[in-house]
């Protein structure tokens, strides 16, 4: 170690000698808020299937849907979350969430190519119900902003996973695999729909 590096290290560490414990502002619940918010969308397979399917469908449709659908979903989902948080009634939530798996899975399986506004509206409609469920089921006493941050981040990453998987669409075998993934989402949606109806 050179002399100047030693001097720099000495001066860098010197302030530590004057350090006192930083305990003035213990932020209770911060980690709990972020982690529980992050866990919420990935804790239910019905949510996971639908959110990944949004990314798959976007990738299958190509530009601009590849980014427009994953942008639409969290924005409308937040509106649903808002309604859930304030306690507004939105009946049929569980059925709509299960239907989102059915509809989005079918769209990927059948390679549906509706006009972009229609695709965005479909995704947005289901996003509303997913957001409502998250808002309404939220445990009390969480840190609002960090919970929301974790929740939005997890949702976005699930879309990202869907888009990343959906990029196989550029290859012929990938198109078939993607339709297979659509079938898997559709099957999951049917299972959850059956559970919601019984």
């Amino acid at each position, binding site marked *: 170690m050179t002399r100047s590096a030693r001097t720099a290290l000495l001066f860098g560490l010197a302030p530590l000698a004057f350090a006192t414990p930083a305990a003035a502002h213990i932020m209770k619940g911060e980690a709990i808020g972020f982690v529980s918010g992050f866990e919420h969308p990935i804790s239910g397979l019905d949510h996971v299937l639908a959110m990944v399917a949004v990314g798959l469908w976007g990738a299958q449709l190509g530009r601009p849907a590849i980014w427009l659908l994953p942008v639409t979903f969290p924005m409308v989902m937040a509106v649903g979350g808002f309604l859930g948080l304030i306690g507004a009634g939105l009946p049929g939530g569980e059925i709509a969430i299960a239907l989102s798996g059915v509809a989005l899975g079918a769209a990927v399986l059948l390679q549906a190519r509706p006009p972009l506004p229609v695709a965005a509206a479909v995704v947005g409609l289901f996003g509303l119900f997913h957001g409502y469920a998250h808002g309404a089921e939220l445990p009390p006493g969480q840190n609002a*902003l960090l919970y929301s941050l974790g929740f939005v981040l997890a949702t976005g990453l699930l879309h990202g996973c869907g888009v990343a998987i959906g990029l196989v669409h550029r290859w012929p075998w990938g198109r078939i695999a993607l339709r297979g993934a659509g079938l898997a989402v559709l099957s999951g949606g049917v299972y959850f729909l059956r559970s919601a109806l019984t």
Partner: protein
Amino acid sequence: MKPPRLTRVAAALTIWAAMARAAEAHLVATGMGPIYDGVSHFALSPEEILPVVAFALFAGLRGPDHARRTAVALAAGWFVGGLGGALGLSLPAAVPQVASAVFLFAAGGALAANAKVPPWACAVVAAVYGALAGASDFGNGSGGLVALLNLVGVCAAVAAGFVLVASLTLPLRRDWLVMAARVAGSWLLALGVLLAGWIVRQV
């Protein structure tokens, strides 16, 4: 005869420092001095970091002119608001959360839409947010040199954080990178909406 401007500023700061009371509003005591306490306060306040990130991503994406003006306006607004707070200006308790929700919504929405906002408008909106956040940070009315140094620390952290984040989006010209930044904008907008829901729920 009027004293020189520098003397007037020095006199004003001396008077303000003479009003010294301990500044312990809700700043973290790092043990490394008041400037670092201010830096740490910003670094540990996600409700302040996220709107700054939203403004920085948006201004950076719009170009260097937006980024320069907004960086200066945000930090200056924070400083002025902090001075106001330290001199006794008090805001209702809900203001920090409401400001975070509104400005996350506005800046996140502008980023998601890649809105063509003029640089001055971007700077003005950022300055308003900065003033509100600064006034909330120092709203206990505790003046003095310690509070001034706290404020300097907060403003330095705000400016540094803004410039670092803006520098991430400033060089983005590839389509997919711009899209990634816009997706981040939609997340920030969603955060604003959800935060608004929390505020209404608490009421």
